[in-house]
C-alpha cells in the first residue's frame, strides 16, 4: 500500500461521511486506531450486490422503497444512531440495501457478505421489521481476504412479542476492516438475542445499540472478540430502557493474543421511567500475550431506585485452578489450555443461530495453529 494513498483515503471517507474521521480526542474513539481503514483504496467496492440473489424463506417479504425511510428513521432516532460516524459514512457510500418484513414464525435466513479480495469500501444496509408476534432467525456472515472495508448498518424493529435471534459471524483478514452498526428498537414483550463473534480483522468496530422503547422486553447480548497479530477489535455497545421492567443479560468475551488490542465499552442507561429494570453485564477478557492489550469500560447510568443492575469485569489469563484440574487428570498443559480456550469461546459461539454450526465457527475464528 503506497503511503501517499493514506491522506487521500481519509479525505475521501470524510467526504462520504460529511464529517472528518473520528480521532483520539473523542472519548468513544480514544483507543481505536483507524489506520487499517485509511489503508483501503479510496473507491467503492466494485463487486456484485451481495443482496441481489437472496432467497427469502416463508414469512419474509421485501419492503418497498416508500416504506423504508419511514421505518428506518424512528429506529435511528431511538438509538441515537443518526449521528454516529459509521452510520454517516455508510449513508454517504450509496449502500446496497435489503429491507425485509417478517410476519409469523418465519424460516431461518443466512446472508453471506463477503468482500473477497476486491479493493475499496463495501457499504451495505439491512432493515428488518418483525411484526407483532413474529419470530425469525438470521445469521449474517462477514468475510474478507484482502485490503478492503465492509460497512454494514443493520436497523431492526421488533414489534410487540416479536422474537429475533440475530447472529453475526465475522472472520476477516488482517488487512481488512469491518464497521458494523446495529440499531435495534424493541417493543414490549419482544425478545432479542444478539450473538456476535468477530476475529481476524485488522480493524473491527461493532456498535450494537438496543433501545427498549417502553421497557418490558428482553435483551440478551453475547459477544466474542478475538485479536491476534496487530489486530484491533472494538465493541461499543449501548442498551437503554425507555420504560419499566426491561431485562438485559449481556456477556462480552475477549481473547487477546499476539500484539492484538481489544476495546470494549458497554453502556447501560436506566432512566427514571425504567423502574424494575433488571440488567446484568459481564465482561471477561483473556489476555494471552505480553504484547496484547485489553481496555474495558462498562458504563452504568442509573436514575431509578427500584432496579437491579450488576456488572462485572475480569481480565486475566486462563484460570490456574481450571488448568490444574485438567492437568491433574493427566492432560498436558498446552492441551489443557487449548481445551479451556475452546470451551471459553464455545460459551458464546454455541448461542449463534443454528445455521452457524455448518461453518464450524470455532475453526473459522480460532484455526488450529500448526
Amino acid at each position, binding site marked *: 500500500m503506497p503511503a501517499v494513498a493514506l491522506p487521500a483515503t481519509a479525505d475521501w471517507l470524510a467526504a462520504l461521511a460529511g464529517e472528518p474521521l473520528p480521532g483520539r480526542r473523542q*472519548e468513544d474513539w480514544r483507543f481505536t486506531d483507524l489506520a487499517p481503514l485509511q489503508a483501503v483504496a479510496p473507491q467503492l467496492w466494485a463487486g456484485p450486490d451481495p443482496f441481489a440473489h437472496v432467497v427469502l424463506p416463508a414469512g419474509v417479504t421485501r419492503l418497498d422503497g416508500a416504506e423504508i425511510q419511514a421505518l428506518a428513521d424512528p429506529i435511528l432516532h431511538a438509538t441515537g444512531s443518526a449521528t454516529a460516524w459509521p452510520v454517516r459514512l455508510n449513508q454517504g457510500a450509496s449502500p446496497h440495501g435489503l429491507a425485509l418484513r417478517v410476519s409469523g414464525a418465519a424460516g431461518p435466513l443466512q446472508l453471506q457478505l463477503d468482500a473477497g479480495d476486491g479493493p475499496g469500501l463495501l457499504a451495505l444496509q439491512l432493515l428488518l421489521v418483525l411484526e407483532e408476534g413474529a419470530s425469525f432467525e438470521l445469521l449474517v456472515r462477514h468475510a474478507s481476504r484482502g485490503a478492503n472495508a465492509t460497512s454494514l448498518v443493520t436497523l431492526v424493529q421488533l414489534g410487540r412479542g416479536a422474537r429475533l435471534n440475530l447472529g453475526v459471524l465475522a472472520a476477516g483478514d488482517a488487512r481488512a476492516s469491518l464497521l458494523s452498526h446495529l440499531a435495534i428498537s424493541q417493543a414490549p414483550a419482544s425478545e432479542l438475542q444478539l450473538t456476535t463473534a468477530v476475529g481476524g480483522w485488522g480493524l473491527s468496530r461493532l456498535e450494537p445499540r438496543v433501545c427498549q422503547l417502553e421497557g418490558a422486553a428482553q435483551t440478551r447480548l453475547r459477544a466474542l472478540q478475538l485479536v491476534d497479530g496487530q489486530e484491533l477489535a472494538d465493541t461499543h455497545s449501548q442498551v437503554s430502557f425507555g420504560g419499566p421492567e426491561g431485562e438485559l443479560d449481556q456477556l462480552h468475551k475477549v481473547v487477546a493474543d499476539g500484539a492484538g488490542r481489544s476495546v470494549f465499552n458497554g453502556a447501560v442507561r436506566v432512566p427514571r421511567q425504567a*423502574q424494575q429494570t433488571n440488567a446484568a453485564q459481564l465482561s471477561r477478557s483473556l*489476555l494471552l500475550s505480553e504484547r496484547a*492489550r485489553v481496555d*474495558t469500560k462498562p458504563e452504568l447510568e442509573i*436514575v431509578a*431506585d427500584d432496579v437491579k*443492575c*450488576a*456488572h462485572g469485569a475480569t481480565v486475566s489469563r486462563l484460570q490456574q485452578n481450571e488448568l490444574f484440574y485438567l492437568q491433574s487428570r493427566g492432560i498436558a498443559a498446552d492441551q489443557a489450555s487449548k481445551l479451556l480456550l475452546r470451551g471459553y469461546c464455545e460459551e458464546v459461539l454455541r448461542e449463534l443461530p443454528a445455521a452457524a454450526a455448518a461453518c464450524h465457527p470455532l475453526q473459522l475464528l480460532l484455526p488450529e495453529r500448526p
Partner: protein
Amino acid sequence: MSTATVGDLVSQPYKHGFVTDIETEKIAKGLSEDVVRLISSKKDEPDFLLAFRLRAYRQWLQMEEPNWAALGYPVIDYQNIIYYAAPKQQEKKASLDEVDPKLLETFEKLGIPLSEQKRLSNVAVDAVFDSVSIATTYREKLAEHGVIFCSISEAVKEHPDLIEKYLGTVVPSNDNYFAALNSAVFSDGSFVFIPKGVECPMELSTYFRINSADTGQFERTLIVAEEGASVSYLEGCTAPMFDTNQLHAAVVELVVLDDASIKYSTVQNWYAGDEHGVGGIYNFVTKRGQCRGDRSRISWTQVETGSAITWKYPSCVLQGADSVGEFYSVALTNNRQQADTGTKMIHVGPRTRSTIVSKGISAGHSSNSYRGLVQIGPKAVGAKNYSQCDSMLIGDQAAANTYPYIRSQQPDAAVEHEASTCRISADQLFYLQSRGIGFEEAVSMMVSGFCRDVFNQLPMEFAAEADKLLALKLEGSVG
C-alpha cells in the same frame, strides 16, 4: 400511620455553617503573574518555589478546564476569586495562648479543641483557616521521634531541602488544570515527614476551614514516609454557608519508600449548598500517592458528604515491587449535589496489589458517579486488583453512574471488578421497624451497614464520627 418513604429523608441543616467574624487580610481579586509573585513574597519563599509557582502558572494558562466528568456547573470566573486571605495576625504564634481566641473558639465549635487542656490526647492537629495554618498541636512531642508535622509554609522555611526534593514529584505542576492552578497559588496545607524506621506515635490530622466568602482555598499537602516508616493521617473540612460558590482546589502528594506505609483518611463535609443547589463548595482535588519503595503501602479512605461538586480521584502509582494500594470510599450526595469520584490504581511494578471498595449513596436530585481506572503495565507481572463498586439509590430522582475503566497489558495479572445497585428494600425496613426501631434509625442503620466495609478502615476515633455524619445527612423531615 406514617406514610414516610426513604426518599423523604432529606438533609439536616448544615451544622458548620457559621462565619467567624475576624479581621482578614485579603489581596485583590483576580489571578496574574503579579498575584503569584505576591503570594510567594507574602510567604517569604525561596527562589525555587517562586520558580515552581510561575512555571505552573504559565502551564495553567495553556490548559483547558476538563469537562469530561459527569458534572454540570456554571463557568468559573477565575478573575473573580481571591487567591490569598489570612486572619490578621502577623506571625504564626509560638504558643497557642497568643492565637486570636476567636480562631480557637471557631475550631472548638467545630469539635477540634486546640488548647492544651482540651485537645485530643492521641491526635496531633494542624488547623488551617482560609489560607494559613494557625496552630499545630504536639509538635514538640512528635519532634522527639524525629517526625515533622507542620504547615507547608513553615516547612518551606525550616526544611527547604525536603520540600525541594519532594514537592511536585508525584503530581507534576502540569498534571491537570486544577493541579496547575494549585501549584501556582497554593497557600497553606500540611507537611509530614516520617523518618526511616519510625512509626508515628500518634494520629496526625489537618482540619481545613474556609471562612471568607469569595476566597478560593488551594491547600497543598505533602507526606513523606521514609524506609520502614508509617503514619495515619486524617483531614477534615468544613465551610460556612454562603449563597455563592467557593472554589477549593487542593493537591495532596504522598511518597512512600521501601516497607513504609501511609494511611490517609478524609472526612469531607464542605458546605454542600441548599436544597436548590444554591451555594456550596466546588471541590476539585488532585490526590496521588507514589509507592516508590518495594513492599510500600498507601491506603486512601474517604467519606465524602459535602461540597456542591466533588471532583476527586485519590490515586496510587504502584512502582515498588509488591507494593499495595487501597481505596475505600463512601460518597453520599443529596439535593443537587454532584460527585464524580473514584481512584486510579496504576500498577507498574511486579506483584503489586490493589483493592478498591466504593460505596455511593445518591438521594434527592443528586448525581453520584464512580470513575475509576485500573491500569496494569507491561512489567506488572503477577499484579492483582479487586474492585467493588456498589450504589444505593434513595428516591427515583437521583442518579448513580459507574465508569470503571480497566486497561491491562500483562497476561500474568488478574483484574476483577464487581458492581451492584441496590436500594433499601421495604421488607428490610419493615423487619427493623417490627422490632421497634424507628424509620429514620432503620434507614440510617442500613446505610451505615452498606458503608461498613469502608468505615472499618477509618481510624477508630473517626469511624463513629463518620457514621454520625452520614446519619445527620439523611436525617430530617419525615412525612
